[in-house]
């Protein structure tokens, strides 16, 4: 697979070179990466690229990015060919050797990286770049089969981390799984995860607990996806009851993001279901709340207007409308108002039984 990516890069460079040789202006075709350029079909289960491409023709105003894109492709090819990896931050520092074409800030370099990824329709790990970001944490009835640095087979038992947890590595394609759990519970905050681990909730409920720590990284999404697909496990998601939890964390986990639309197919979990906290739960469980912030209201409006995922699900539209009317949001840990273990003893067991209270 890596050889083909390397060949793909050479092909793009060759194409540019041939154009210049014939005294024609070269151009690069890069798919638009935004919510405007994705469609969502609930049957397919993920955001799919519509296919609008922006042609980055070489002109005086694009010459800088054009040069940077070619230079980064060159670095990428070198990394692939030597079977090495570089973090996004390291790539930014590599650019400091490029003279005038160097990046001033890392976001510039990240954007060019995303462009190349989308242009070649690959995942950034395939072009040799890895993120800094930490993956999720896992606890419960699961044995992950991995290799150590010398290639020896390792069996990692996720029940044996005590009050700690197993960390999802940045690349998960080679992992294999053994489990007898009944479902996966993906949790937004480390705090809620800690409580469930501390009280061995995974043992009581026969499940695998995964902490996403905010919007799940690609590795975490891919990890959950592979685990769920291979072991045929249902995935339930438990986040704060606010627009960020719904539209950024849950939606990205389930159907992917606009920015990474070219790889969503692999980096999403279409079988995920939203367990809570729903706007209705606020009423049903008499939870203490906070008022919605301006950004929350804006995020809801924006989601209803622009997010194909929300547009495809009436249930979500209603939930967001309800939240706008209530003008309230709630945190996962608000259940502590009833008692510290209310979430374990009452909320989660009840919600797992009542499928009609979930959101798609």
């Amino acid at each position: 697979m890596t050889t083909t990516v390397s060949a793909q890069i050479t092909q793009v460079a060759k194409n540019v070179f041939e154009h210049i040789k014939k005294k024609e202006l070269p151009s690069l075709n890069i798919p638009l990466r935004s919510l405007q350029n994705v469609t969502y079909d609930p049957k397919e289960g993920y955001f799919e690229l519509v296919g609008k491409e922006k042609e980055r023709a070489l002109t005086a105003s694009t010459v800088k990015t054009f040069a940077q894109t070619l230079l980064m492709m060159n670095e990428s090819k070198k990394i692939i060919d030597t079977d090495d990896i570089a973090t996004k931050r390291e790539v930014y520092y590599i650019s400091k050797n490029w003279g005038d074409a160097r990046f001033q800030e890392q976001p510039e370099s990240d954007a060019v990286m995303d462009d190349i990824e989308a242009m070649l329709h690959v995942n950034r790990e395939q072009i040799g770049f890895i993120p800094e970001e930490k993956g999720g944490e896992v606890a419960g009835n699961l044995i992950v089969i991995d290799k150590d640095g010398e290639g020896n087979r390792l069996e990692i038992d996720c029940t044996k981390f005590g009050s700690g947890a197993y960390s999802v590595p940045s690349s998960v394609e080679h992992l294999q799984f053994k489990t007898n759990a009944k479902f996966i519970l993906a949790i937004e905050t480390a705090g809620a995860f800690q409580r469930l681990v501390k009280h061995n909730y995974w043992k009581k409920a026969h499940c695998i607990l995964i902490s996403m720590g905010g919007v799940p990284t690609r590795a975490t999404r891919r990890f959950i996806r592979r685990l769920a697909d291979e072991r045929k496990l249902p995935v339930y998601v438990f986040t704060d009851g606010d627009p960020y939890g719904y539209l950024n964390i849950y939606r990205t986990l389930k159907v992917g993001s606009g920015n990474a639309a070219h790889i969503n197919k692999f980096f999403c979990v279409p079988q995920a279901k939203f367990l809570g906290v729903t706007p209705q739960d606020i009423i049903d469980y008499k939870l203490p709340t906070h008022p919605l912030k301006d950004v929350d209201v804006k995020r809801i409006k924006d989601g209803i207007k622009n997010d194909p995922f929300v547009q495809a699900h009436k249930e979500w539209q209603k939930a967001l409308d309800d939240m706008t009317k209530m003008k309230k949001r709630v945190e996962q840990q608000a259940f502590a108002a009833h008692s510290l273990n209310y979430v374990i003893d009452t909320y989660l067991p009840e919600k797992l039984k009542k499928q009609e209270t979930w959101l798609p």
Partner: protein
Amino acid sequence: MEKKTQQAKTPRTNTTQEQTHTVTAHDLAKQQREISVAEFFAKNRHLLGFDNPRKALLTTIKEAVDNSLDACEEAHVLPEIIVEAIEMSENRFRVIVEDNGPGIVKEQIPKIFAKLLYGSKFHRLKMSRGQQGIGISASVMYGQLTTGRAAKITSKIHPNEPAQYYELHIDTQTNQPKILKESIVDWHKDRGTRVEIDLEATYSKGSQSIDAYLKQTAIVNPHATIIYTNPRAEQLVFSRATEQLPPEAKEIKPHPYGVELGLLQKLLGSTTARTMQSFLTTEFSRVTPPIAKEICEHAGILVNVKPEMISREQAERIIAAFSKTKIMAPPSDCISPIGAELLEKGLKKEVKAEFYCATTRPPSVYRGNPFIVEAAMAYGGEMQADDMVRLYRYANRVPLQYQQSACAITASVIQTNFRQYGLQQSKGALPVGPCAVVVHIASVWVPFTSESKEAIAHYPEMIKDIKLAIQECGRQLARYVLKKQRLHSEMTKRSYIEKYIPAIGTALKELLSLPEAQRMSTEENLKELLEQKRGALAHIEASNEEYNEEFALVGKTSEEDIYEDDAEQETEENSEDEK
């Protein structure tokens, strides 16, 4: 004026009496007496521009020079004016202004120079610098009040006649001239007038100085030569740029739209016309017999009524009838604009810029008075991009140096959106950018906010026309600024090509393991491709042969001057501007 003051006092007197019962009406009556105009202005000198010693010097010179220019132009003589300011002792100056005008007949001299509100210009409708007949006599009075010395006037009206010499005081109680000395002297000049006034004053340089005033006067009066010796004994000569006198402004009759009840009643009493129809057609401009008939119809009076028979109530109906009747705008040959070309030439002398433009608006009317607005702009060059625009205001060829913020010209500039012309501007402020704006208003009657003639009153018609003139220049300016900006971004883009093509060459060389020669040809091809697409580089020329550095420096505060000037004056100047 006197009457008004008395009336205002009467009601107050009565209430005091009722409250205290100790002072009788008779006692109070003894205190009531007439106030002379001279006394009034002696107490209210700031109304005439004598607020402080520095301004007093400027006002005195300004009044004398304005009169000299008016006189020369009326006599069709190219003005040559000699101005001298001599420092006699600390805070004591002697001002001498001498012209080559027609001179003044003997009998008139004392009244013109030593009686307030005496003059030829107040009652007529014709464009001139002086209007009220206050200026020069106020200067004489100020000199007298601060130094006790007489004003010395010399005037000669014909080469074959001797010159008249007078030493004059003004009787502030009666507003009558007091002749201290009267004689016949020899004078080398054929014709002309010389004024010498001693006064308490201070001299400083800067934008509000005499130096700057005379220079700016020279800019808008290119037909005049001014020879000026300042208190530091430096002589500056502003020589005339044209031998052509400006076309003489004609005197006009009042236009019905600008007439108020008092003036109408006065005209009705003084006219020689025997019917209303002939009264209206002879005493007003643009009233033809059919229009006169229409006015009478609207007013409900007969056309053959004798003017002196018109009652106050009928007069009011006539005023109302004026506004109901459609009357042509007054003729504009009573105004003589400077002209866009000369205005631009003057600005070129003063400001070293890259771009100049000027415009003269067609005549307009406010309250029945015709006026013309002219504007000019200079952009770029030596001017700083983060400075406020320099605003030069003129009215009837006289520079306005004080009370910038109270002036309708300033308001018009502020109300114009300069951002569309490529300058910066925050709301309610003058624009910021490398730009100078000149506005000249010429009218038979310039509506000043006070007798010191420093700011123009806010008449909506006038503001509208000033804005139109500024916009006309602004559009031309915008074209230049945009062209310049495009050129600038073009240069940036071209430098981008130079900068980043080698990076593309290097990347392709490494990716495809190209030999060095191929890398070079790739880079050459790319450069050719990109530059071919950009086309030829536009060229902006900036040359100004009119610019005169020595001239431009006159009146500008150099660092040395700032140290010399005492701090008090500097703050005065600032507070003036902020008002």
